[in-house]
């Protein structure tokens, strides 16, 4: 058995290494589309193209240059431009040929809107700063610098992303609502306005498109910039794979989730209320004012060189674009949307009543096909998250609330663990009898031995006290949910606690000190808590497994736990350490006194230490059998 256990653990370790290797990653994640470099046309170029397509001289297009931002304002219009409306457009646009950035600041957000395309090019969260280990500094920006940004608009496939908009109104005064209104003209000369509304105490940005150009046209609003990963990817096993960016869309009732790892494109259509992408902690969505008919395109691209420095091509994160095609509406001259751009805080998400909070814990793994985990897992995780927040409200310390959560989970599972403890004690008392039976019937008469065993169990009534293995598997969800919540809760981001003062951030792996080199699977950081936990596991294992056949377990489990947990966020490790410690306390001090049944009392002097709870016979006997 020893040899097999070692082989088993080696296989598990090898598979972990394999599934984190670039060989596998390239195979599994390599097939996503490469994003084309966004090309900007100036509005003059567009105008010239339109002119040439309308029969104008094709030579015109060659003379047009793209005006760089901050460059000189061009005034000359194409010579052969016969169409007066186009000329008008051109001159109107010509005034605005310099890209300007309008910055609006509320108490939650700092948003930059470019006059080129009227796009949102920067979305800074004032409540969140980059971790000290990240390359970027300052407030978290949900749009990567230099990205195409968000809030794109096109009408009848005519993109406005490179059109220079005129500033109609900028009201960033002291009013409750700050407004930015931008205006441009379409190729057919009709005007279109983009209006952004900003307010305090909300992560909501109003986004309205109106004007003659919208009437009876197919309007497309989009969010091409996706979402920027706010966290530095950790160069540890299990680190990079879990926090993939995800796309979600909803009709306001049910929410569909997509993970853009292998599939490049999703095109749901029908009733639409919102579509968004989420990173580990943040969420950006485009929301329709009311339920509307639309075609949606969600596309995943291989992440461009992440500014957060994805290590060694290991970045499995995918940039996600999305566009919403509103079907032509003859009457509406206004398309009202709004944008949610903020943290994945359950309170902030659920206050809009649009099921945004369902984006927090989507189940996208294979588990949903076998265990229907997409049905029961999100509610459990949500309850645990709400408890965590509630405890924090009471105690103002996340370490303490994690402690309370752990305690609560121990209390919930107390009847189960306690009854298993009790039956473990009684099994110990019974072992000598079983050993005697085995000696009596041995290998020769298996049938008789079985019968005698049955009779013994019936007489002693021991096993009926056991809860059984099924409840053990059934309580796994609670542990997994606790684990996931502590790993993903934005509330723990940059949170500290008095209980473990050397930890600077509960959402980051603890680093007591950093090694100058990386140990495979272990990483570069040396953390204290995983070591404590490994020690606790060792003692616990030593107490629980006294069968010499399972000796390998006693040493393997702590080592595996140490390696595995070293790269995990400190909050998770803290929970697990507490859980181990409480389990040990329960086992040692809360255990009931051995039930000295008169029938087995005489066997108490027998060497019970050698007896494991998983075996019918004593260790000596079972090892002989093999």
């Amino acid at each position, binding site marked *: 058995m020893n040899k097999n256990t070692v082989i088993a653990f080696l296989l598990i370790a090898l598979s972990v290494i394999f599934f984190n290797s670039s060989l596998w990653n390239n195979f599994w994640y390599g097939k996503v589309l490469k994003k084309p470099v966004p090309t900007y046309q100036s509005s003059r170029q567009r105008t010239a193209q339109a002119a040439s397509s309308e029969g104008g001289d094709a030579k015109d297009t060659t003379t047009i240059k793209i005006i760089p931002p901050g460059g000189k304002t061009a005034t000359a219009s194409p010579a052969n431009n016969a169409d007066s409306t186009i000329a008008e457009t051109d001159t109107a646009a010509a005034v605005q040929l310099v890209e300007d950035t309008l910055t609006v600041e509320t108490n939650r957000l700092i948003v930059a809107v470019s006059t080129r395309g009227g796009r949102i090019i920067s979305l800074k969260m004032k409540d969140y700063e980059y971790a000290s280990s990240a390359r970027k500094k300052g407030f978290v920006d949900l749009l990567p610098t230099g990205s195409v940004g968000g809030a794109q608009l096109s009408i009848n496939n005519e993109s406005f992303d490179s059109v220079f908009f005129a500033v109609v109104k900028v009201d960033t005064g002291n009013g409750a609502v700050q407004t930015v209104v931008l205006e441009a003209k379409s190729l057919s000369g009709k005007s279109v306005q983009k209006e952004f509304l900003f307010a305090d105490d909300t992560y909501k940005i109003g986004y309205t498109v109106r004007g003659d150009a919208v009437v009876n046209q197919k309007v497309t609003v989009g969010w091409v910039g996706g979402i920027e990963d706010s966290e530095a990817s950790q160069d540890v096993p299990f680190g990079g794979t879990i926090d993939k960016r995800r796309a979600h869309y909803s009709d306001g009732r049910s929410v569909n989730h997509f993970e853009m790892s292998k599939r490049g494109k999703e095109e749901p259509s029908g009733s639409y209320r919102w579509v968004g992408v989420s990173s580990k902690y943040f969420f950006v969505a485009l929301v329709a004012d009311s339920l509307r008919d639309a075609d949606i395109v969600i596309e995943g691209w291989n992440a461009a060189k992440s500014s957060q420095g994805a290590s060694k091509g290991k970045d499995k994160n995918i940039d996600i674009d999305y566009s919403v095609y509103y079907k032509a509406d003859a009457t509406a001259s206004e398309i009202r949307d709004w944008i949610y751009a903020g943290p994945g805080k359950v309170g902030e998400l659920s206050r809009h009543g649009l099921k945004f909070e369902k984006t927090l814990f989507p189940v996208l793994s294979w588990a949903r096909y076998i265990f229907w985990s997409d049905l029961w897992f999100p509610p459990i995780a949500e309850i645990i998250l709400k408890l965590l927040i509630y405890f924090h409200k009471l105690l103002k310390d996340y370490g303490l609330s994690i402690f309370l959560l752990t305690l609560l989970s121990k209390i919930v599972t107390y009847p189960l663990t306690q009854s298993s403890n009790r039956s473990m004690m009684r099994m110990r008392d019974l072992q000598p009898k079983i050993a005697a039976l085995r000696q009596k019937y041995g290998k020769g008469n298996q049938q008789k031995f079985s019968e005698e065993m049955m009779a013994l169990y019936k007489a002693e009534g021991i096993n009926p006290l056991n809860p*059984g293995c099924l409840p053990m598997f059934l309580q796994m969800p609670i542990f997994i949910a606790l684990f996931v919540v502590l790993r993903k809760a934005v509330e723990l981001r940059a949170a500290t606690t008095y209980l473990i003062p050397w930890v600077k951030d509960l959402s980051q792996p603890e680093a007591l000190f950093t090694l100058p080199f990386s140990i495979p699977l272990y990483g570069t950081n040396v953390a204290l808590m995983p070591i404590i936990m490994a020690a606790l596991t060792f003692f616990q294992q030593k107490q629980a497994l006294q069968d010499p056949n399972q000796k390998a377990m006693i040493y393997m489990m702590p080592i595996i736990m140490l390696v595995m947990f070293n790269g995990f966020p400190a909050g998770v490790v803290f929970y697990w350490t507490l859980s181990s410690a409480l389990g040990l306390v329960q086992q040692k001090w809360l255990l009931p006194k051995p039930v000295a049944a008169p029938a087995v009392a005489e066997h108490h002097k027998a060497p019970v230490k050698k007896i494991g709870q*998983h075996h019918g016979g004593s260790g000596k006997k079972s090892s002989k059998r093999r």
Partner: protein
Amino acid sequence: MGREAVAGVTFALIQSVKTLFLMQGAVCKFEPSCAVYAREAVRVLPPHVALIKIIWRVLRCNPFSKGGYDPVVR
């Protein structure tokens, strides 16, 4: 050899679940316990039969069952 290794993996997995999620010893209503049963089943039975038998065993191992001596039957 391959079968032995799979048996080892099965045993290690169930044992790890016990360690990770319960941190406790005896829970099983049966003798041999579910983990040992799973290991034996993988050893002596064809894989698909073993899988079904293990699942059935774990399902039976609940607070309402009687438990008892239940070895792997070939």
